[in-house]
């Protein structure tokens, strides 16, 4: 069998285009994925135009402090990569050219409107968002990002206004100094507490007939004070009505980088291995060598095993090259090389068996390449559909469908190997063993009518 394997490697070496593709493909994929993952730390770029006058701010109360355009920018740019622009035209141009995901414009009257929220004549503040929705996926992404940012900004403002309202209630209960913004002066507030004490002192000096009326006022002051104290925690709850407690009940907490690398590695593994093995097996027939080889001591089973070995050799080489190319761009857990090797071997063997089944069914190199593409691409696409994006019934059907092909367990194994926080590798490897056996049996059956 090893002589057949050496023969295939010799043939590969003498097929410059195929050999170049086998080397170039993982290198190109590695560089592309590397740039994509290391470019901007995953933050989308957003143009930021501030039309609020410099230095102007909104007093969000004693605990909220000043809130101006600078604070707004800090809040925003913590979540996205901000690109400051000086005019609306520049913002529009960047959005139109696709340089940025969207543009956020803080209008000139934003702070006045924010300040009005704590007055008797509130006006709703508005920010302007420019987006380019020529791509539905991008449009959905922009909508989600902007909605999240605005929700967060609303929550912050709500908290600050609640804090200010709580401060007013404190002032009403305990008394103190209140500064009036537009009058630039302060007034002393007595407070319900002090008012009650004064009234109690006055009440002791009054005749019983007049005291009764005053006692009712004192009683009101005490009840108002107690009830207003109850309002303080209520205001806090209104500011943050829902708290989130996240529990992961399925799957590990895989990092996005590790998942992206795992997808790139699995897709590379899939295309190289399936196409190579399917084409190589079909070539045995096109060269008329199949019957002569299988008539020898090697037999059809030996030839099939040799093709699986060829697929595994190609898988290991190509995937390691790709991960090596990725290393300067992103952190790869090379200390987990044992698990990575297991994932590549398992995935490589499964894709090789799948390729052998395709090659033995198609029987011609061109037909097998076409069939490999036509089957592999939709399977990979359907394997990446996340739960919750389709109905439960459809997702259950998808789970059964993708379990029949090597892509899903290979991706799971690769993700587990690359990321220690992902779920274990045992189950995906076991799944891959089943896939290898199933497709090897199918390929062996198809070889009966191969010659």
């Amino acid at each position: 069998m090893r002589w057949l394997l050496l023969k295939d490697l010799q043939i590969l070496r003498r097929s410059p285009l195929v050999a170049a593709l086998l080397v170039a493909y993982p290198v190109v994929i590695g560089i592309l994925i590397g740039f994509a993952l290391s470019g901007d730390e995953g933050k989308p770029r957003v143009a930021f135009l501030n039309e609020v006058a410099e230095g102007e701010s909104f007093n969000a109360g004693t605990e909220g402090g000043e809130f101006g355009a600078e604070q707004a920018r800090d809040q925003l740019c913590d979540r996205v990569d901000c690109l400051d622009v000086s005019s609306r035209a520049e913002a529009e141009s960047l959005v139109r050219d696709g340089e940025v995901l969207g543009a956020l414009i803080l209008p000139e009257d934003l702070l006045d409107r924010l300040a009005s929220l704590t007055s008797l004549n509130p006006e709703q503040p508005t920010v302007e968002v420019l987006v380019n929705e020529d791509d539905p996926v991008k449009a959905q992404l922009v909508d989600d990002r902007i909605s999240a940012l605005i929700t967060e900004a609303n929550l912050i403002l709500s908290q600050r206004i609640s804090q200010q309202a709580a401060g007013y209630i404190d002032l009403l209960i305990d008394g103190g100094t209140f500064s009036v913004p537009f009058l630039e002066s302060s007034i002393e507030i007595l407070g319900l507490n002090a008012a009650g004490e004064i009234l109690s002192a006055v009440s002791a000096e009054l005749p019983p007939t007049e005291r009764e009326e005053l006692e009712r006022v004192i009683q009101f002051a005490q009840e108002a004070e107690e009830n207003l104290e109850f309002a303080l925690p209520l205001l806090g709850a209104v500011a943050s009505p829902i708290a989130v407690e996240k529990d992961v009940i399925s799957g590990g907490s895989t990092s996005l980088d590790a998942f992206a690398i795992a997808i790139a590695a699995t897709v590379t593994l899939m295309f190289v291995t399936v196409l190579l093995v399917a084409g190589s097996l079909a070539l045995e027939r096109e060269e008329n060598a199949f019957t002569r080889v299988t008539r020898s001591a090697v037999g059809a089973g030996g030839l099939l095993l040799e093709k699986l070995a060829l697929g595994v050799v190609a898988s290991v080489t190509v995937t390691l090259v790709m991960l090596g190319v990725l290393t300067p761009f992103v952190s790869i857990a090379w200390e987990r090389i044992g698990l990575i090797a297991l994932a590549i071997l398992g995935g490589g063997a499964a894709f090789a068996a799948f390729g052998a089944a395709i090659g033995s069914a198609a029987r011609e190199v061109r037909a097998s390449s076409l069939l490999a593409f036509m089957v592999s691409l939709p399977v990979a696409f359907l394997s990446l559909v996340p739960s919750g994006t389709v109905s439960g019934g459809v997702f259950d059907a998808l789970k059964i469908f993708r379990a029949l092909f090597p892509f899903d367990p290979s991706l799971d194994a690769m993700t587990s190997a690359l990321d220690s926080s992902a779920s274990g590798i045992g189950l995906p490897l076991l799944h891959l063993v089943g896939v290898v056996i199933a497709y090897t049996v199918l390929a062996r059956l198809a070889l009966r009518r191969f010659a």
Partner: protein
Amino acid sequence: MSGTTPQAPATAVIEVSAVGYAFGDRAALRDISFSAAPGELLAVIGPNGAGKTTLLSILAGIRDPDSGSVSVPGKVGWVPQQAALYRRLTVEENLRLFARLEECADVDSAVDRMLDQTRLRERRGDQVATLSGGNQQRVNIAIGLLSAPAVLLLDEPSTGLDPRQRERLWEFVNGLADEGTTVIYTTHHLVEAERYGNRLLVLADGENVFDGTSAELHAAVPDAGSHDFEAAFVAFLRERGH
């Protein structure tokens, strides 16, 4: 069956006894029996679909007969109709690979012997894809001879070759027979069957309708009125309803 009554030669290297084979409901071979002696050149001829290639594939061990038996004490070399070679490998690499797959005891000497026999030593390093059709067929045959078989099976060996290449091919095959190799070949070129075959086996609709020499076939159709072998062959088949 016409011609010489088939009797197993005293030193038969292959004996075929009542072999039958069917593709589904269609019988491809029916009750085929013959034997061959060392150095004999046996031509298997017949119309398209007569069962020639099926018979050779059974003799080569590629198919198992549905009935009957094939007895070959020694090794059998098989050469398919179309060159079964890896075109990206060189002549020597092809020979070496198949020598290993055939589990030859001494791979180097087997390859050397074949390079000499095919007179392709000077082109040993050339990729097969760069060889002419004739030379590719010589390598194809050489691979069938790697294990020094007692019987060599050639399926339409001269197909696609020009007259000069055909002449050189038969010169090579005759040389093998002279050295004691039994050669059983199928052909559509009746001239090749008449000229090079010591014996003819005529198959029609899966039956062995003649086993003898070309002279005996001529004699079997005296009314054919011609010395032309092809005319005699056609007349013979017509007489027997094929």
